[in-house]
């Protein structure tokens, strides 16, 4: 319960050193210790996708990984994606399509969408729907999100 572990990692390009309780979730560490509150907590067991972040280039559920496991990793959160411009095209498309309402799922949705696009995903609506089916959105009908992701892929091809 009280065991702590020293970790060193890079978060959004900055070096981070911390001593964390062994049971601390990665997303709670990012939110609580680093004040990176853009990653959200929806279910805490890997179903809803609200805490999706990028760890060493892979999209990962921040609630299914312990902070201790992040030792030595390179992490990018929504704040990092936004600041670096990596998610700029998606942000513009989500805005134009109104692909968000409350915005709680949005950071995780962007991280998942970026994973699809960066892997060379096609502007195929069914494939996009399948890819984002680990990200729960209660507000939109998903259609605008699919539209926005398609827009980004198609614009990049032209």
């Amino acid at each position, binding site marked *: 319960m009280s065991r702590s572990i020293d970790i060193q990692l890079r978060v959004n390009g900055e070096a981070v050193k911390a001593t964390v309780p062994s049971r601390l979730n990665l997303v709670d560490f990012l939110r609580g210790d680093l004040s990176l509150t*853009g990653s*959200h907590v929806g279910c805490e067991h890997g179903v809803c996708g609200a805490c999706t972040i990028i760890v060493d280039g892979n999209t990962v559920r921040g609630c299914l990984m312990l902070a201790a496991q992040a030792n030595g990793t390179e992490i990018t959160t929504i704040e990092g994606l936004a600041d670096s411009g990596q998610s700029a095209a998606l*942000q513009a498309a989500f805005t134009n399509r109104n692909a968000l*309402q409350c915005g709680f799922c949005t950071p995780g949705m962007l991280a998942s969408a970026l994973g699809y696009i960066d892997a060379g995903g096609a502007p195929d609506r069914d494939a996009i729907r399948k890819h984002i089916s680990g990200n*729960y959105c209660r507000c939109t009908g998903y*259609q605008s999100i699919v539209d926005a992701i398609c827009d980004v892929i198609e614009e990049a091809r032209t």
Partner: protein
Amino acid sequence: MTGPAHIFDKPNRYIGQPSPRVDAARLLQGRGRFVDDETLPRMVHAAFVRSPHAHAKILEIETTNAKPAPGVIAIYTGDDLAEHVTPYVGVLTHMKGLRSAPQHPLAVGIARWQGEPVVMVIATSRALAEDACELVQVDYDELPPVVDTETALDGDAPVIHPEFGNNLAWERDVVAGDIDAAFAAPGVQVIEREFRFGRHTGVTLESRGTLCDFDPSEQQLTVYYSGQAPHMMQVIFATHLDLPEENVRVISNDVGGSFGIKIHTYGDEIATAAAAKLLKRPVKFIADRFESFVTDIHARDHIIKARMGVTRDGTIVGIDLDDLTGVGPFSMYPRTSAIECNQILNLTGAPYDLENYRAKGRVVFQNKTLMCQYRGVGHPIAMAVADGLLDDCARAIGMDPVKLRQHNLMADDSYPRASATGMKLDDLSHQRALLKLTDIMDYKGLRAAQTGERQNGIYRGIGFVSMVEVTNPSPMFYGVGGASIASQDGATVRLDAGGALHVSSSITEQGQGTNAILAQIAAGVFGVALNRVKVTTGDTATTPYGGGTWASRGAGIGGEAMLQAAQALKDQVLDVAAVMLQTTVDKLDIQDGAVTDLDGAIRLPLADLARTVYYRGNELPKDLNPELIATRHYRVTDFPFVFTNAAMAAHVEVDIATGFVKVLHFWAVEDCGRVINPLLVDEQIRGGVVQGIGGALYEECQYSPDGQMLNATMADYMVPMASEMPDITVAHIETLTKTSVLGAKGAGEAGTGGAPAAILNAVNDALSPLGASIWQMPMTPERVLNVIDSAAK
């Protein structure tokens, strides 16, 4: 020339344009501010020991081991908090006969549902508070629970509140015409079905939560609240924590979905505020997902026996229904838990020209999570019952369901008028909406294809619903019954020294685009560029007083208040401009940030006018006292509600081997009056449809016979995900409401209200060649297979 008619003709009016939301960028960059994103100095955290039983006497609470646990600041039981929080009772005087018992934030003496908070632990972190919860010992004596609504009124059923003698919370009978005579008339065929609607819940992705801070030096409680109605909560906190109302400030920043879930009095949130007051420091409580499932309000859960009579030529002669619903052990405070049943009684069959109607509703107590108003309140049930029976009648008399609707829907030129239950209706367009729907979906083509598909063993169905939606409620909804819930809303518009507008409103933002449409209305009516409007909502300290956003009232009521305030400010500014320019107001306009001639030629930039007023008042005549700020309030006066209508259709495929229902496409033609921003309305309707599809096909709070919720995780409670959802085509008819200048009605709940009926009808259409039909939601694969098997026997 500055009159209202001018508003909608300007080139830069903004109203009606698909402008992207200005505040989207913030949310897209991870810069949202949800309750759990807030931290305050000296903040501590609450966790709760909750009842593991549906019904149990609390014999003893032992906190000796928990108190010295690491990080623990305080532990409170129900008895402890009862000394500091007055109990609340969820009744309204206009819901005649509705009963409920006093409720405490933490259970006192008896726990009445699984998940009811029993003990609160405050510690320096949530994790430590949860650790200490494990060390709290509660001795329970289990009592027999009331779980099944159908036996809740039996003579031998346990009684949850012995002082009432039985478990009846409320009942109502509605009678119009003579249904028995109508059904007995020659040539009338009567169709009877028993409908079952499962319990479901809102599953807001951001769970409920609150951060409460108390400053004893000023006796000031500040509550960061994830919800829809800050002023309502201000009254509740003040009343039950014994504070002057003005000493309670409620702030709603970003809200991660609400849908009616976060607009009620939850014991854990009240307890958190009480703890902040007692400890004189900030206390945060964020519900985890399990807590959300067992304590967020549930909804639906109705068993309805219903009959519809139809003549051979397709005239519906009436509807007779009996609704039984269980609402948990208390009626929710302050909105009550009888409203959904009441809506069903009021709204079933409301689109149709019916002379005879009889409805009985009974609301019973049970030992499950409390039920209350979730998106669509009663609509999905009322529409599924009426339109489900209507499609069944169509099959019985061999008439096309569209033709049967056209024959019975109220004529578009028959308003103003009343429904069979006496609801006042105006400005509706059922016939046009249905015509537009069949046109955009290519109904003839789909029907033609269906026959061939069936021959190939593909069971596809087409289902319709024609619906009404209650929007823009007047004081007749809650205020008349004694609830401190405002039905009017206010808007303030202020011109700053740089020529920008600062607007504030009492309606609130949960993602609908409230702030965006407020800005559009202010910019368009007053005459500045959209990006020169700053919007403030969700703070009782800085916004006008009003109800907030619920019952599809934000745009219609709050939007009209904003329109009037912007118009009033424009009139004031033009008074000043006329003096400064030595002309008269009828020769001036405001366009794109400047006072102009009527032809648009710039006379005076607004910044110049404002700087003269604010900095160089010496240049103005002494008797001119400019007010560059205006506030207006608006309420609906002529109608209890402003009804909207929609026609929707679903195209589904049923896999008769597995029972799986695939929604192939969905269409919605919605008449919400003036569409302020089609980009926002369309996706809101789609989101509503998806929630409706969830209720129709997937979502159900499953309970064991002893009252344990069996699927209280997001892995087990099925919600619609992207891959199961169809593309949804949305179209509009704009029949303006005459109750306001803006002419906007609500749109937020239509999809949720209508989709279940359309899906039900589509599934039954698909199953019709098998002689099977289903009348239970959610229509799970197992239930679909069961009705197919029963039909085969």
